[in-house]
């Protein structure tokens, strides 16, 4: 268990390290002079001012030095200041991050509730009309783009029925974006749950459990679900990171005030420090979640726990 954990943590740190390299070099991937592009929308910047910005961002230094300087700042919690408004990037991001996490978590809860139940039922009733119905719905769910489903829900529930607000960041505003994000991901979880459970139902230990005279509910709950959950948990971890990504789109559709919406604005405004900060923070969240999922995986599967 300890070596498993150490291995995962090492992989996590390595991932973040590689991300910092990519992020710090991001600015050079833009064709042309990054400083000119950044300030292209600003009126009346003199060449001296641009030179000053260049020096402030360290862009006149060799790449190696630039990276070391960047890491030095990042390790002190300084992600730079935004081009527009000259605000500290970290503060801006941290102020918005909880909103995105709330959205992604609510969506995950919805996705798991729908996905696990539908997948389990489809597997248990495999080959019946119910299975076909559930899995056809799942294909529809997987195929629907977030922004499209979001707009449909928005139009129907907020504009037509007027049950829910169109945009904003209150509790009632959470419902539509969470459902949008949840439903599309529920479909993926349902499909995976179905195949994982079908796999488990065919295992010999399920037959052993029945041969012991255990009631069906106990066999399904204790023996099948517990064993089938192991691969599903890994998948759900991945789903959470997809949802963080999906949140970028959904936040924009519903005007939800999270980091995703801010990132899109930053991209439109060529606000490089903010974009860099966003990518780095996103990477850290994704890595943290995957480490958490590994822990959960190990807890569920004794073959890993006791290694």
């Amino acid at each position, binding site marked *: 268990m300890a070596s498993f954990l150490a291995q995962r943590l090492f992989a996590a740190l390595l991932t973040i390290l590689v991300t910092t390299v990519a992020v710090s070099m991001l600015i050079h991937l833009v064709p042309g002079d990054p400083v000119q592009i950044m300030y292209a929308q600003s009126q009346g910047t003199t060449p001296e001012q641009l030179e000053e910005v260049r020096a402030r961002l360290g862009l006149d230094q060799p790449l190696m030095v630039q990276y070391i300087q960047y890491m030095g700042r990042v390790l002190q919690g300084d992600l730079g200041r935004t081009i527009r408004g000259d605000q500290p990037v970290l503060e801006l991001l941290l102020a918005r991050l909880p909103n995105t996490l709330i959205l992604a978590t609510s969506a995950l809860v919805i996705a798991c509730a729908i996905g696990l139940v539908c997948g389990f039922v489809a597997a248990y009733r495999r*080959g019946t009309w119910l299975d076909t119905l559930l899995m056809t719905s799942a294909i529809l769910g997987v195929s629907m783009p977030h922004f499209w489903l979001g707009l449909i829900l928005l139009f129907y529930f907020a504009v037509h029925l007027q049950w829910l607000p169109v945009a904003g960041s209150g509790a009632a505003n959470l419902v539509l974006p969470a459902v949008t994000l949840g439903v599309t991901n529920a479909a993926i979880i349902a499909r995976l749950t179905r195949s994982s459970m079908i796999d488990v139902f065919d*295992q*010999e*230990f399920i*037959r*052993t*459990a*029945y*041969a*012991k*005279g*255990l*009631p*069906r509910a*106990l066999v399904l709950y*204790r*023996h099948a679900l*517990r*064993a089938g959950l*192991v691969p599903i948990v890994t998948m759900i971890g991945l789903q959470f990171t997809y949802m963080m990504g999906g949140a970028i789109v959904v936040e924009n559709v519903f005007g939800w005030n999270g980091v995703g919406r801010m990132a899109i604005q930053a991209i439109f405004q060529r606000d490089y420090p903010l974009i860099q900060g966003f990518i780095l923070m996103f990477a850290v969240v994704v890595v943290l979640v995957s480490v958490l999922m590994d822990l959960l995986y190990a807890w*569920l*599967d*004794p*073959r890993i726990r*006791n290694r």
Partner: protein
Amino acid sequence: MSATKSIEAPNDEPATRPAPVLEVRDLCTEFRTKAGVGRAVDGVSFTLHEGEILAIVGESGSGKSVTSLSIMGLIPDPPGRIAGGSVTYGGRDLTRLDEKALQKLRGNEIAMIFQEPMTSLNPVLSIGRQMTEGIRQHTGMSEAEARKHAVEMMRRVSIPAPEKRLGEYPHQFSGGMLQRIMIAIAMSCSPRVLIADEPTTALDVTIQAQILELMRDLRATTGASIMLITHDMGVVAEMADRVVVMYAGRKVEEGRVEDIFARPRHPYTRGLLAALPVLGTAGEVGGTQLNEIPGVVPALTDLPNGCRFSDRCALSTDKCLAEDPPFADRVGAHSAACWHSDRLAPTMEATS
């Protein structure tokens, strides 16, 4: 493995025949497949008596495992179903019992162990949990009492440090130890019938002998009847009191183990015996070669007319191809389903 066996029963029919525990009559179990409906078990009858070890023998696909699952009511439906016949236990026909009633019997009065101990236990549940859940289900013991009983059962199947091992998981055990655990689980509610489906096939030869020994001990101490399913005539010789030979879903021969080995009355049984390696001869220069039965068991959806064994049988005649031989049932005695039983020569052991 030698084919000699300490003869426990006298050669003549015992005056007080042990009482029947489990009676299978004309059992038919069907499976629906894409190729059509296949009868995996087709009109099989046999009786398991008090305290006896009955071996059900046959190749893969002969229907022996399906027979045992039918008795347990564990045929997956769909695609399978019991299409006819009866399984009488304790005055009740198990094929007509509902799921609740079957649950009370399974693991309690009729227990079962399987071929692959490694995959027959749940990898994510502790051994303790998997041992106590059945005990609690059938006895109403508390968790603490059930654990005590589980430890006792583990001692009986010679598992060292049972208290410690209770908290461990299947992957921390060897195959032989897991089969001991399976046996401990199966015996934990003192069943009257133990169905052992190829219990030693997946194990090393030395471990095989230990597991068979353990099963014999348990039979002696608990008086349980054992239905031993195997394809290994060596195991049959060592364990069984009586033998039922199955082929393509039918019973083709039945009799006491001594009779079957000395004078098989069905060419298929004869073939199985000939396929048994004789210690010290096979592989040597000039030694006897291992014999095999040519061909394979026919597909259940594509059975030959007449005798099902006719296409693999050296004694096959036109009559065999045209007419299905009936099972000449001489109750309790040695009988077979073959037109040419009398043409079969005794085995080597009987002649030498």
